[in-house]
């Protein structure tokens, strides 16, 4: 799939890392060519031939050779070590954008996002915009994003291969990283630290949109249209009631509701349910009925028909589908 590959970098950080990967690959291919050539020559030239009984000369060693194959690798490693050290410092520098290397923004152009990882979903808090978003991280293009990583239960790791290498979400410790997306698009992200049974399903998306769209998104996320929040139309209004009766303790729409589960303000715009299932009414239905069957060990309880009848479920799904902020 597009935008999931570290080999197809879509931003300056991933590019920097891709360049390092390629540099090291070239150096390493050179090493392999040298070793393999000697190897193949030796095996062909010095194999035992039928009837050969000579005793080879018992050579002890050769100091000059030892010196050569100690020195040359050191030089090759220096070629890799120097850019690596420089990049390591560049990547760790989340203080403020530096001049050069395509990064020219002013400090106020930086977008700060706190990433909170949970078993098994992602929460994105935009402290400067008063936004709490679940599973999808909207960012404006061409803006440096400074990310602060947190974890609420076990260790997770935040990885968006096409934009930036990963950094761990460690409980009790605050990590930082940054990246930038010059192009609009959806960039796929995954958790890369084993975090329990549904580790493999802990996917998320970074969605880069143009500056204008982002400000619409940000405004509506912070203060969604009250009509939508209450549910437009009779069915949705009934859905809102179901939502208030069952969901709101953990899930918020706008600023109303708990934060144990992902924020649902823009749920209707999601492409997937639960981070990985195609957004269809059937999938949403299955998910609410029995989340554990789809994503083992996750925190969301199931709601059987005694809790939410099929009719109520239709209303709820209709209501959820209405929760959109971009149109």
């Amino acid at each position, binding site marked *: 799939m597009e935008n999931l590959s570290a080999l197809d970098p879509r931003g300056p950080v991933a590019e920097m890392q891709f360049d390092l990967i390629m540099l090291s690959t070239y150096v390493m291919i050179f090493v392999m060519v040298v070793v393999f050539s000697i190897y193949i020559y030796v095996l062909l030239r*010095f194999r035992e031939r039928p009837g050969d009984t000579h005793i080879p000369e018992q050579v002890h060693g050769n100091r000059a050779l030892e010196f050569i194959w100690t020195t040359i690798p050191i030089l090759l490693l220096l070629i890799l070590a120097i850019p690596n050290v420089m990049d390591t410092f560049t990547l760790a520098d989340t203080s403020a954008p530096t001049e050069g290397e395509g990064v020219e923004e002013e400090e106020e152009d930086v977008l700060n996002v706190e990433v909170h990882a949970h078993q098994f979903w992602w929460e994105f808090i935009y402290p400067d915009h008063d936004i709490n978003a679940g599973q999808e991280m909207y960012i404006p293009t061409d803006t440096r994003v400074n990310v602060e990583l947190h974890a609420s239960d076990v260790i997770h790791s935040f990885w968006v291969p096409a934009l930036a290498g990963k950094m761990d979400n460690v409980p009790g410790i605050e990590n930082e990283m940054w990246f930038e997306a010059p192009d609009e698009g959806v960039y796929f992200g995954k958790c890369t630290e084993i975090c329990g049974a549904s580790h493999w399903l802990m996917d998320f998306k970074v969605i880069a949109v143009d500056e204008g769209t982002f400000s619409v998104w940000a405004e509506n996320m912070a203060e969604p249209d009250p009509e939508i929040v209450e549910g437009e139309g009779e069915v949705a209004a009934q859905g809102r009631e179901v939502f208030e009766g069952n969901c709101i303790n953990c899930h918020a729409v706008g600023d109303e509701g708990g934060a144990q589960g992902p924020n649902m303000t823009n749920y209707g715009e999601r492409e997937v349910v639960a981070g990985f299932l195609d957004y269809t009414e059937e999938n949403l239905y299955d998910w609410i009925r029995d989340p554990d069957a789809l994503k083992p060990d996750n925190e969301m309880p199931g709601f059987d028909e005694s809790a939410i009848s099929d009719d109520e479920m239709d209303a709820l799904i209709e209501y959820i589908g209405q929760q959109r902020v971009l149109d």
Partner: protein
Amino acid sequence: MSNSSTSKKSVLWDWLTTVDHKKIGIMYFFGGLFFFTIAGLEAMLMRIQLMFPEMSFLHEQTYNEVLTMHGTTMLFLAAMPLFFAFMNFVVPLQIGARDVAFPFINSLGFWLFLFGGLLLNLSWFTGGAPDAGWTAYAPLSTTSAGHGLDYYIMGLQVSGAGTLMSGINFLVTIVNMRAPGMSMMRMPLFTWTTFVTSMLILFAFPALTVGLLLLMMDRIFGGAFFDVAMGGNVVIYQHLFWIFGHPEVYILILPAFGIFSEVISTFAKKRLFGYSAMVFATMIIGFLGFMVWAHHMFTVGMGPIANAIFAVATMAIAVPTGIKIFNWLLTLWGGRIRFTVANLFALAFIPSFVMGGVTGVQLAMSAADYQFHDTYFVVAHFHYVIIGGSVFGIFSATFYWWPKMFGYRLSESLGRWFFWLFLIGFHLTFFVQHFLGLIGMPRRVASYLDGQGLNEMNFISSMGAFMMAFAFILLVINVFVSRKNTDDVQDPWDGRTLEWATTSPVQEYNFAQTPLVRELDAFWHEKQFGDGRMKAAEPLDDIHMPNGSILPIIITTGLTVASFGVIYSTWSIIILGLLINFGAMFVRSIKEDHGYHIPVSEIKREQGEGK
């Protein structure tokens, strides 16, 4: 003092009580092979699950248990014991010793390994195996439900104690028990790597002991080491684990380096090129093994200075490793290379390991590692070094030393089939995994979604795994069908080192007279410049031998019972276990047992038969 007349006891009792390093070596071999098979089956389960996207062959929870047990079993219970098998069997012979320094502790070490391993695997039947990966990072490991992680902690604690004892035993054996003339710089390279490996064990395992102890404190006694709410810090566990864990991977590779050095020089019919450089490189690798652990933690947030330092230190390891590779190539250069199965594995090791080594250098680059870390790229890398290095080393040693250990030669033709299938299967399985990692497949995932471009390579990888499994079956068959190849087993490869100067099977006292060592490759030297037999360093005399003992098993049983008590937090069982354990230790310490002597007459008779 007991009598020398070895009254024939039952075979089973003999093996249960033996303190003979050769028998212990053989038990390590089969113990290791048993766990190797189990861990291999676990690998197959994983590859079946990953053959197609979104498979539900295994439940996610089961998958996590399988992956944890695969890693843990392979490293602690398969690879290390298999090396211990050869170390135990071969090292005393290579240095011309009658036995190891501590035969009793040697036996204790084996039983601790075995019981620890069985204890760990028992978790499958008691409600679920550990599921937090072989690294068992807190807090996933401290909060994991059920008792799986408790089994992990206690199983590794028990077998780790055995490993530490074995390490000390090898160290003292090599320092104190070398035959006259066997200076440190005349020791065969396998003995050298055993020595350095044992040093790594001595200094690495205590860190694991503490790491596991802290996990135990948190899980069982409510400690707060890794409980963030109580002020704990989860990174501490990662440091402790990797301060052990990185030397551990060198514990797994150095003995293989030793084996390849022996095999390559034997089958090239040449002295090892740059012997002293090889010894020096081994020591440097051992030293650097302790300096680089944090490269497993680049993404944990230590900061750029720490990352940069550990990155550069890690890269430095490529230098001594390169020295070794080139010295092996130059050993082959000008030689007369025979392609026996043992040597095929040694030769296949060179390119395979170089490929694992270069990805190691790539991983060492911290900035790029942010992309590699915890993806299938890493999985590919460490399988290239552990299979391409350690496992090839084990197979090479199996074919090389089999005649000495078991008195018959494994079939070369069947062995060749095994080799080629295994080699091709191995590269098929793991080469594609480099790319899987780079295009977005994290490691330790129970499955992957369709439509992300991961399907084809995962399928190829699984096919390769089937080939390896099939190849392994050929090895097992080989063990059974080759049993008639009992001719030419004393020195079938025109060996260079002292173990080939003994009879096959080796007498319980190894050497009737301690040999006098005059050169590196002592036996080769006598074959080239002497009469083909080792000179004796002492007159023929009675030989002192240690008595066997059942106590190691009793001590181990006690510890295992106590471990159960800990797992289920039951004080009565803990106390019962400790009583058995300390009781047996007490008996051991108050019972004077000075072994027995084999009289000259009997030795002469056996030597006569041996001719």
